[in-house]
């Protein structure tokens, strides 16, 4: 498995970006080839989207997974998965026992595939994305297993959630209380979005972002991976809706070490080649800002 030498922010890609072409015009190896071209060294997959026969992949699939990681010099970074709370008709939340069954299954599979960070999606109960009421019991119940398998469960902080929100404060309080390295945060850069895209629905309507880059600094020790969300890369390699230079500066100045996993969220996802070009533009931008 490739071991990146750089300490600091590293460039990776979430296969989510390719979801408009996935299975129609691109397969897993096509995505890895693309990532190799742009010099990305880390990957996020979505368990429920990209692992064939999930949650029981075949040995052939596993072999192919490791072959691709080696061939294209890709480190498995983040394993996206869901604790599906609305699993049954008419039920808003899932009991802790069944939530844990799902979560533990993913911890073990993520470890088998070489991942160290889990993007753990908990169910939400309202428009500000407040997590299910039993989230503390669910995470507590899985901490031992996560430690044994050396993975960190990270909920994603995604707009409209702000860095300065009760949700983030609650997560930080939990991490401090249990002094755990197996629960942390994934920050989605969409929370810094400060402009709408032309002809494409998005937030914020009034142009004010949910969060500001300077708010990252105290949170850096809790962040284990980021979704380098982007919506629109111009031909001169600028992201027109999210302030990348300011965001990246916070991570670099704070001495943060980890992966930015590109997540394309703009239009034309199903036009062959469109997302690949957007990703390459974004990686040119990140490479220029980082200096490597």
């Amino acid at each position, binding site marked *: 498995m490739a071991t990146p030498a750089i300490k600091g922010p590293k460039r990776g890609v979430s296969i*989510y970006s390719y*979801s408009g072409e*996935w*299975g*129609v*015009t691109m397969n897993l190896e096509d995505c890895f080839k693309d990532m190799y071209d742009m010099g990305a060294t880390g990957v996020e997959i*979505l368990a*429920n*989207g990209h692992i*064939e*026969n*999930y*949650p029981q992949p075949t040995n052939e699939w596993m072999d192919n997974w490791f072959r691709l990681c080696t061939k294209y010099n890709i480190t498995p970074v983040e394993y996206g998965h*869901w604790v*599906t*709370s*609305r*699993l*049954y*008709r*008419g*039920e*808003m939340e899932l009991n802790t026992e*069944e939530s844990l069954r799902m979560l533990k299954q993913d911890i073990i599979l993520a470890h088998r595939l070489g991942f160290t960070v889990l993007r753990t*999606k*908990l*169910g*939400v*109960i*309202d*428009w*500000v*994305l*407040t997590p299910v009421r039993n989230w503390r019991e669910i995470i507590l119940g899985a901490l031992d297993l996560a430690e044994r398998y050396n993975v960190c469960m990270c909920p994603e902080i995604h707009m*409209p959630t702000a860095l300065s929100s009760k949700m983030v404060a609650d997560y930080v309080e939990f991490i401090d209380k249990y002094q755990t390295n197996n629960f942390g945060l994934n920050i989605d850069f969409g929370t810094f979005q400060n402009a709408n895209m032309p002809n494409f629905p998005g937030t914020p309507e009034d142009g004010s972002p949910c969060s500001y880059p300077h708010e990252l600094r105290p949170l850096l020790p809790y962040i284990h991976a980021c979704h380098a969300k982007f919506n629109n890369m111009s031909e001169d390699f600028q992201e027109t809706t999210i302030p990348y230079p300011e965001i990246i500066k916070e991570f670099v100045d704070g001495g943060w070490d980890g992966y930015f996993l590109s997540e394309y969220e703009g239009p034309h996802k*199903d036009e062959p080649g469109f997302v690949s070009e957007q990703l390459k533009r974004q990686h040119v931008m990140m490479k220029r800002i980082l200096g490597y």
Partner: protein
Amino acid sequence: MLEKQNVQTRGFHNVYDEEGNAIGFQVCIRSTYYKGVWLSQIRVGDVVVDGEHFGRDKQTWIINGVEYDADQMEKLSTIHWHILDVATIVVKKPGGLAQGYHDVEVNFGTPGSYTPPMFAIPPKDKSEWDKPFDIEVFSKLAVRPYKNRMIIV
């Protein structure tokens, strides 16, 4: 590979009993969502062909080679419908469909759990955003129509 649109042209044909009588038809769909779902998350609506409705009691779904009816699927929370697998919907219709073009509409969906109800519009008043969702809204909004115009040979 999959066809881009949700309702696949491949796999659309009449089905026959052992004596060769057409007893219905089948239509294949894929999920154009970006992730697979557990069978208990699938909400089955009507299949509509040229305006004729076939309810969930007239359908069975074949996923990974196993045939289920809608009620069975809603109880199966450990079996996963992967996004690269087409589901074959078998519809009971004595005599099958006539030769030629048909406007086919498949209604189904899944209520997400980590987002607000899909296709719901957030309350204008932001002070209402931290009020819990109405669970009924999820199932209602989840079911969407997917259409294709296809030929029975």
